[in-house]
């Protein structure tokens, strides 16, 4: 097997405690992840499990307390500002909330040009590239001069995808990219992400609380709980033959849209977990 594009080994992240000289609060206790180039690695867990923090550590948005993150053979967990700026060409992000991830007072064109200008493109080059990006995510070209508030949640998430794609990254951290969207919109945005992967060969770290979504898009799935990976394997393995009780609990507690099947699932859930805490 080839060298993974991104390797996370023994990653620890702590946040300062509240108050003067309060002890630090560790949220990731030694996490391992390996993401192959061009593949999708799903990361699923409940709220407070630390799944978002892993993504933010990879992006350099939270300091790493221990362990290593290696991208393309180079350690990046202690990257300085200059190396980070270079890395921004390779690693990008799509956030959950399409309403706060776009600056409300900047036009779509300005937002999309931002990463291009940061990479020292001329504004004319940037503008023509932005037009191409809007086309890639199936938004009209006149979107360039409009403000985020004129777009729906799904459209905004397309804009966020376009921004992440702007400088041709090799890895995109998708932090709950469809959680704020309606069911039908969710589907089209996931389809767009998969199509982008087919055409550009980008790898995704796909962070979500929704096992169904993760199963739908991922090649490999890791389940995280309280700052530790409890189970990792191919999507089929993890979602059809779950080994860890927490994974089974996740699967059994997600209701399905078929009443008869849901009755069966509910019975199984009760047999296994009735009266226990998640």
């Amino acid at each position, binding site marked *: 097997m080839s060298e993974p594009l991104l390797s996370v080994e023994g990653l620890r992240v702590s946040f300062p405690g509240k108050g003067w000289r309060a002890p630090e609060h560790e949220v990731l206790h030694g996490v391992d992840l390996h993401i192959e180039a061009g593949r999708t690695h799903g990361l699923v867990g409940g709220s407070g499990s630390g799944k978002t923090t892993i993504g933010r550590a990879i992006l*350099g948005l939270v300091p790493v307390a221990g362990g290593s993150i290696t991208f393309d053979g180079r350690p990046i967990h202690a990257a300085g500002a200059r190396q980070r700026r270079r890395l921004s060409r390779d690693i990008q992000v799509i956030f959950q909330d399409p309403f706060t991830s776009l*600056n409300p007072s900047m036009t779509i064109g300005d937002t999309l040009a931002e990463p291009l200008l*940061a990479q020292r493109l001329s504004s004319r080059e940037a503008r023509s590239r932005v037009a191409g990006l809007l086309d890639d995510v199936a938004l009209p070209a006149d979107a360039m001069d409009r403000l985020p508030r004129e777009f729906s949640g799904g459209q905004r998430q397309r804009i966020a995808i376009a921004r992440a794609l702007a400088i041709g990254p090799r890895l995109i951290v998708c932090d709950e990219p469809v959680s704020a969207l309606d069911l039908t919109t969710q589907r089209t945005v996931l389809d767009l992400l998969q199509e982008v992967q087919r055409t550009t060969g980008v790898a995704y770290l796909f962070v979500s609380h929704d096992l169904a979504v993760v199963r*739908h898009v991922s090649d490999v799935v890791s389940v995280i709980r309280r700052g530790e990976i409890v189970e990792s394997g191919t999507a089929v393995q993890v979602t059809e033959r779950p080994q860890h009780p927490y994974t089974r609990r996740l*699967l059994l507690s997600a*209701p*399905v*849209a078929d009443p008869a099947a849901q009755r069966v699932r509910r019975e199984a859930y009760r047999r296994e977990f009735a009266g226990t805490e998640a």
Partner: protein
Amino acid sequence: MTESLPALTEPAGAAAPHVPAVRRGAFRRLVRNPLGLVAAVVLLVVVVGAAAAPWLTTHAPDAADLRSAFGPSAPGHPLGLDSAGRDIWSRLLFGARNTLGGALLALAVAMVLGIPAGLVAGYAGRWFDAVSGWVVNLLMALPAMIVLLAARAIIGPTVWALMIILGVLAAPSFFRLVRGIVVNVRHELYVDSARVSGLPPWRIIGRHVLVVVRAPIIIQISLVAGVALGLQAGLEFIGVGSSSDLPTWGGMLNEGFQFVQRDRTLLLWPGLALGLTSAALVLLGAALRDVLEDRGTDPVVRRRDRAAQRAVAPAVLDGKAERSPLLSIRSLAVSYALPDGSQREVVHEVDLDVRPGEVVGLVGESGSGKTQTAFSALGILPSGGRVSRGSIQVDGQEVVGLSAASWRQLRSHVVSYVPQEPMSNLDPSFTVGSQLVEPIRAATGASRAQARERALGLLRSVEIEDPERTFRAYPHEISGGMAQRVLLAGAMACNPRLLIADEPTTALDVTVQAEVLEVLRRLQQERGLGVLLVTHSLGVVADLCDTVAVMQDGRIVESGPVDQVLTAPREEYTRRLLAAVLDEGQPPTVAAGRADEGER
């Protein structure tokens, strides 16, 4: 010092090049605001008068002619002459230069110190934030007037030095404003995105942060300018400002005060100038706030609403099916008043019944009108919204147009509500227990001890393991799932027969959702509750509901028993919704099949 005068308009002007479109729109709105227009005109007149002083009068401000002291207004001396025979009009004009100049100097010092420090402290934080925080607290603890008097005693009567000190003392007001906003913006996802895009910090501040602090700074400028003007004039008035021959409004007031018995107009003119300018600054600040933060039109709309609220078109009920005794909605329309006075209908012709002991799901995507329908049945439509047509019966009683008091009665005996965001529906400053006990006492008149017993019983009924501890806990000490159980317990407090739940599990983890749904199901079965469950999740509908209504664009497109609608939908839209569910193709029992697997 004249060169500092145009600086009064500088902040707005300086901000203009960045986003001309936004600023121009704001300026137009400011001019349309009557108070803003008057204030701006007054300030403009004062500034132009000060700048053009040499051309507006032929007399030097300090040209004294003792023979004509206290002279009346005459050609060439429009406002008369003062105690030393100096032209009052000329002194007012030149005094404006010194008075405004002093205030502007203080303002400029305050901005130069406060704004950059606030930006750095808010954006970079760490030690700079801590140190500047101490310094600012120290400065704010100092009484400005006393410091200024002490400074005057030490460095002598130079108004400019005193104004610089005043500027330093006023800097915290800008610092705190800017820092507070920047700290919030710093955590916005779009700032994170910019960092990931590789933008250096100074460009992030320039592009994303300054835009947000611009409007509050402009507002603050006009307020601080008013304060600086007042303090400056106050110093001059008590005679500790400049040396006496420099004309200032405060100095003129001082002189007028000495001769108030002889000629009252000496007091009138500088007082009028000061009062008008200060008032204009304060009013401009208020108008800017309205314009830049988009306020001010609300009350008008609301008043119009209230009048419209009373007019509900009666529903045409002929031929509609028999109505349920618990909740029955017929031909419901919900409308919202738009700012221009027109109405927009967001729910059209909705018919819905909830029978006792029945769980009805109301599904749809965002904006489909499902929450508006539920809110109408609770009488809690947000302001601007109203039931514009149709009939809603709760427990056989028509509730459209019901008075607030009757609604309270209904809500504390028949119908209960479980909201979507459990945490934001608990008051963080009271314990869980007191938030349960108060409504119970209000509804039943029970004693404190009885209500407490009842609240503990309710907490037990929603399967909270240690009810005593939860009872004593504050909302931040319990989890989201626990908070939702508490709200469920609260909803059961008045033994309702109808429960309306708006996305009760959407904010919860899927594992917690399963637990809360179990609790809800048990409560519903034990008490024979009728439930209207608003949700976007077809899985939740399949899990809990007996019948379901599918909403799209404010209409119910399909309704019927859950088994039929979810497995053999008749409508295209329902099929599309079901197709978007990502579980398709996956036998959902796979996960449940571990027991079988073990046998293999």
